[in-house]
């Protein structure tokens, strides 16, 4: 088993998304996250799927998705050849005496305070999904009241392969 991110371009037609989720359900593939939104082309959506499965299964998933009439393109996003980002909103318990500490912690991760209340505050954080995981771990002891993540979205890097400089950038 390993992690795989798959990027799917599909026609924005009624039922297109359900055909993909149905395919996963029917063939017993487990979706970890799924994010969908518009692309640079009108009428075309991009779907980013995160799946935990074997190499054999990911190959099957790609082939089966290719057969769907509304699917235009399926590519696997390989970690060193793609950019992946995710957005999280995290509401953390923050009594007045702990606020400063939490905000400082957020600063380190580039997390912005999206809202603030008497006993809690809500962070918004954008980054690589792994960074979001790390931030979540760090604020957990303060009491996470609610958390929402968008699921990762990704694109292939414009260059053919990742250079060391690009690796440093991510």
């Amino acid at each position, binding site marked *: 088993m390993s992690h795989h991110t798959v990027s799917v371009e599909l*026609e924005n037609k009624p*039922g297109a998304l359900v055909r993909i989720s149905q395919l996963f359900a029917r063939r017993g593939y487990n979706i970890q996250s799924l994010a969908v939104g518009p692309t640079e082309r009108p009428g075309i959506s991009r779907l980013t799927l995160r799946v935990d499965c074997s190499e054999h299964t990911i190959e099957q998933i790609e082939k*089966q998705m290719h057969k769907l009439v*509304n699917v*235009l393109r399926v590519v696997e996003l390989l970690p060193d050849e793609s950019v992946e980002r995710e957005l999280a909103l995290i509401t953390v318990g923050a009594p007045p005496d702990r606020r400063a500490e939490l905000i400082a912690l957020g600063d380190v991760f580039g997390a912005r305070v999206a809202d603030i209340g008497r006993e809690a505050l809500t962070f918004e954080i954008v980054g690589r999904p792994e960074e979001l995981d790390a931030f979540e771990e760090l604020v957990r002891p303060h009491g996470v009241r609610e958390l929402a993540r968008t699921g990762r979205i990704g694109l292939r890097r414009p260059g053919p392969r990742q250079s060391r400089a690009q690796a440093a950038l991510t």
Partner: protein
Amino acid sequence: MTRMLGSDAILRSLEAEGVEVMFGIPGGAILPTYDAIARGTTVRHVLARHEQGAGHMAQGYARASGRVGVAIATSGPGATNLVTPIADAWMDSTPLVCITGQVYSRLIGTDAFQEIDITGITLPCVKHSWLVQDVREIPAVMKAAFHVARTGRPGPVLVDIAKDAQEAELDFHYPDEVDLPGWKPPTKVHERQVREAARAIADARQPIVYAGGGVLNGDACAELLELIESANLPSVVTLMGKSAIPDSHPLNCGMPGMHGSKFANFALNKSDLIIAVGSRFDDRVTGKVSAFAPGAKVIHFDIDAAEVGKIRSADIPVVGPLKLALTQLTSELKTMLAEKPMQTAAWHAQLDEWRGQYPYKYRKGTPGSLIKPQLVMETLRDITAGRNDVIWTTGVGQHQMWAMQYLQCDEPRSFITSGGLGTMGFGVPAAVGAKAARPDATVICVDGDGCFQMTCQELATAALERLPIVVVIVNNGWLGMVRQWQDLFYSERFAETHLTKQVPDYAQLAEALGAAGFTVDHEDDLESTLRAALEAGRTAVVDVRTDPEENCYPMIPAGAAAVDIIEMPDEEEVPS
């Protein structure tokens, strides 16, 4: 550009696709389209008695003709009754366009009378589906539906059309091109892969072709025959592939799998190279995958990339149309073999030995004993020998396996059966559809008594639509294959499998449905009665009462390996 109603546009689309016949039943939400039928069309409508029957008829039509089958039904229960044929067509890659009426657009989502989300229900078993709510979409959707159904790996599509779209007007123009940017079935094959395949075949010592239904679907029967003859390649043929190459051909080693011969199973499992052609390593063929053909390299030819490597990894995958792939392969191979002939003499000698050693066999009846079901098949085979106008259909179960074992099919598309889904009741309606496709043919449905009772209402269709078929019921009074599993794997606890041979009285039932009815109890009357039914000149049913204790052998238990094959037990072991 002609101004017309949506309902008329549906028919003009069918006509533009060259559809000659559709199978269906009217109802509320599809009524506007039936009214258009009343206004006139060149498409013949065959009125089924149940939508499942209509669907299987469309399948039988498609399988006998190689063309797209069309079924039509109303919303709600009409549509849900089509689900079984759609699923069957999905599993067996049969091109089908199913048209269903849907309630008015404004009622969709309100749980209106006879409203059901049929595109949702059928999602896992269609190549694609459309819900049409705008009349202007009808021509393009119909064009796309036929295109998707027939191209690539064939299969079923569903067009669900709201009643208001049928009733509204449009300017009709049938498009010449389809607009489906995401639908790109392969049209070419990779030449290097073909050359590599040819080299592997030329080097093999124990090669076996493993031909499946894709050969028939890909219209590649002649090309496959050319391949096996030019390289003297032995071939096993799956249930779905039966008739792709002649059963009488000396290179045809018969069917592998659960009820295939020991010969065919050994030929496949002990080979050093499997040349899979339009077959999919189904569990009924492989049994335990990890023990399947352990010493074989695999070349896999298929139009569907997702089948290659799905069950058994392919050493040489070749994705593309089989007709083209096999033509290229044969030409490459001929060049190679001209320089260095194949070294397969020892393998052929081994195959000949197995062929002689492991024929299908059964214990013949004694005077006065019950008729053996295998004898029914042998008699049918013998009385139709030499005829090239016979099309067989079957139900699912023991009789189907005996039909596969004993009937001789030498013409492509002459054996039509439900393989993947295993749909009991497939045989009678499929026969009606096959007869509509090939009015010149003699269509014989070999059925079981359990199967027959599931769809026998379509005899009325056969009788009234003048589509005469002959149904031969192997009546053992049991759900025979289930009984066999209870016998072998459930310590002979025959829970709820007994139907009785007497109820219904099949001959009387046949007469009631407008067919001729015959009953055979004794071996001596078997041949003459079957001949009489074939010569009746109308739909006929022969109720042949057979030995209920006869099991179908050999048998590889589910999930077991070919070496675990169970042969017919010795006399003393036969349960009394």
